[in-house]
């Protein structure tokens, strides 16, 4: 156990030294001060657990010192030493925040006991404070998660409603286009203009459709089935999808995962979406001559996939925002800003974690940590996971 740090404050040198010696023998870590000012100076530099404070001292007296201590380090416990038969002062001390008081002449055993009690109180309070901080932090996180979840539900609802009018726009434009292709309209004036504008409508619809589908993909959970996933196979499969774009850009795609060793229970479709999102960002961010590497590591109950690119990196002020919905640095029409938002909500649901490290001009690294046997969180808005636990060959 750590020894209790005690500061003895008394102007009577002999008395103070004797007490110090005897408390040291009992395993306490003793510091000494001859007056109030010195006491406060010491505390400023190096905090202690308990201060034993004489009431009657020249210069700054005990009472004043006590006020200062309670002001500047409220967690420190103070035991007052009062002159004989001056209980009045002791009571005032307790009112001002002292732990207790003892009347001189003191019995050493008694003092040592009081110091221990004061220390225990301090530790208890520390723990309480820590618990309180922890709870406050958790609450904040919960609020943030819930806000995101309800935002997600709302967004999914909106997205769904938008799909119907989108379908109407799309069919109308498509119909007009097919009419324009009729023979009897071959000579129609400014036909090209109409076709051009209809093309723009169709592109616009396609863009909106991409957004709504990505949003719906993130929140509206389909009943996922968990199955065995070999991460190497999954990564290979996903890399194939990006090979063409990478080749065109002159970017190398590498994978160094041991075959057969990184197998987890998860949702292969959702995981693939995660990989696609991260890999496509990496390909976008990397220029000719660059490299993207995927590695995997397995511990007893987790597997971690790491996707590193030697691309342009993410500046500090963006790093906080990349997981927010609609944050994108890509030109309008190219980025939706939903990729990483969706990615994170999927990983959340799979019971995993995602982390990112990045250096501007050097590259970015995403690591995705997944449980080998997820106990998948139920989705707040309907939808749950059905785990298939019969592991038959």
């Amino acid at each position, binding site marked *: 156990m750590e020894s209790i740090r005690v500061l003895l404050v008394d102007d009577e040198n002999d008395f103070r030294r004797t007490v110090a010696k005897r408390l040291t023998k009992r395993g306490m870590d003793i510091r000494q001060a001859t007056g109030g000012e010195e006491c406060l100076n010491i505390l400023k530099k190096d905090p202690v657990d308990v201060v034993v404070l004489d009431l009657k001292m020249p210069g700054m007296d005990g009472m004043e010192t006590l006020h200062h201590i309670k002001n500047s380090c409220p967690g420190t416990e103070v035991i007052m030493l009062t002159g004989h038969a001056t209980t009045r002062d002791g009571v005032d001390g307790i009112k001002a925040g002292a732990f207790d008081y003892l009347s001189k002449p003191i019995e050493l055993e008694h003092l040592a006991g009081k110091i221990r009690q004061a220390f225990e109180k301090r530790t208890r309070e520390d723990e309480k404070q820590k618990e309180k901080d922890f709870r406050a932090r958790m609450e904040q996180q919960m609020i943030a998660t819930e806000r995101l979840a309800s935002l997600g539900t709302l967004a999914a609802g909106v997205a*769904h409603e938008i799909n119907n009018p989108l379908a109407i726009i799309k069919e109308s434009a498509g119909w007009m286009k097919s009419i324009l292709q009729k023979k009897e309209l071959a000579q129609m004036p400014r036909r090209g203009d109409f076709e051009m504008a209809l093309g723009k409508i169709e592109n616009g619809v396609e863009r909106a459709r991409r957004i709504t589908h990505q949003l719906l993909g993130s929140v509206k959970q389909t009943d996922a089935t968990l199955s065995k996933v070999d991460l190497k196979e999954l990564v290979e499969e996903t890399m194939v999808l990006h090979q063409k774009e990478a080749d065109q850009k002159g970017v190398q795609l590498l994978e160094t995962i041991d075959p057969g060793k990184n197998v987890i229970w998860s949702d292969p479709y959702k995981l693939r979406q995660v990989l696609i999102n991260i890999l496509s960002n990496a390909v976008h961010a990397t220029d000719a001559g660059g490299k993207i590497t995927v590695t995997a590591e397995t511990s007893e109950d987790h597997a971690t996939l790491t996707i590193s690119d030697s691309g342009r990196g993410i500046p500090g002020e963006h790093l906080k925002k990349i997981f927010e919905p609609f944050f994108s640095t890509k030109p309008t029409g190219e980025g939706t800003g939903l990729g990483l938002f969706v990615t994170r909500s999927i990983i959340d649901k799979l019971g995993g974690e995602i982390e990112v490290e990045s250096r501007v001009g050097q590259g970015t690294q995403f690591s995705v940590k997944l449980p080998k046997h997820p106990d998948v969180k139920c989705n707040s808005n309907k939808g749950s996971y059905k785990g298939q636990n019969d592991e038959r060959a």
Partner: protein
Amino acid sequence: MVRIPTRVLLVDDEEDFVEMLSLRLKEAGEQVSTAYSGKACLDILAQDHIDVVILDIRMPGMDGMETLGEIKKRFPLVEVIMLTGHGSAETAVDGMKLGAFDYLMKPADFEELTHKLQGARRRKDEQEERIRQAEARLLMRKSGGTF
């Protein structure tokens, strides 16, 4: 060769959508009827010859799934293509188990839709052809018995 139009029944509570998609399908040479509810859909099926139903799964009242079940029970030869919202793949799978031919997500790609329409039509033709042959065999055996 003259293409025989597919007789399509388009069912969705979104009237504008039904109107525009049916115009487009007609433009592409199909023969299209429309219904705005599951019940209206079943009424039409009871009266007219229909090859393929394009059915929105999300409808108020008698919903798409229920309608699908009823179609397959009463008109087993009619093929059904479902229109689903995104992210409801499980509904799509349930629908296929109930006997739907395929599904598409809204807003659907027209090429894909016509492609699936042809597939559904082909399956229905083949099915009807098999039934005709079976009936013919049955007839032969019967007449064989009286021989």
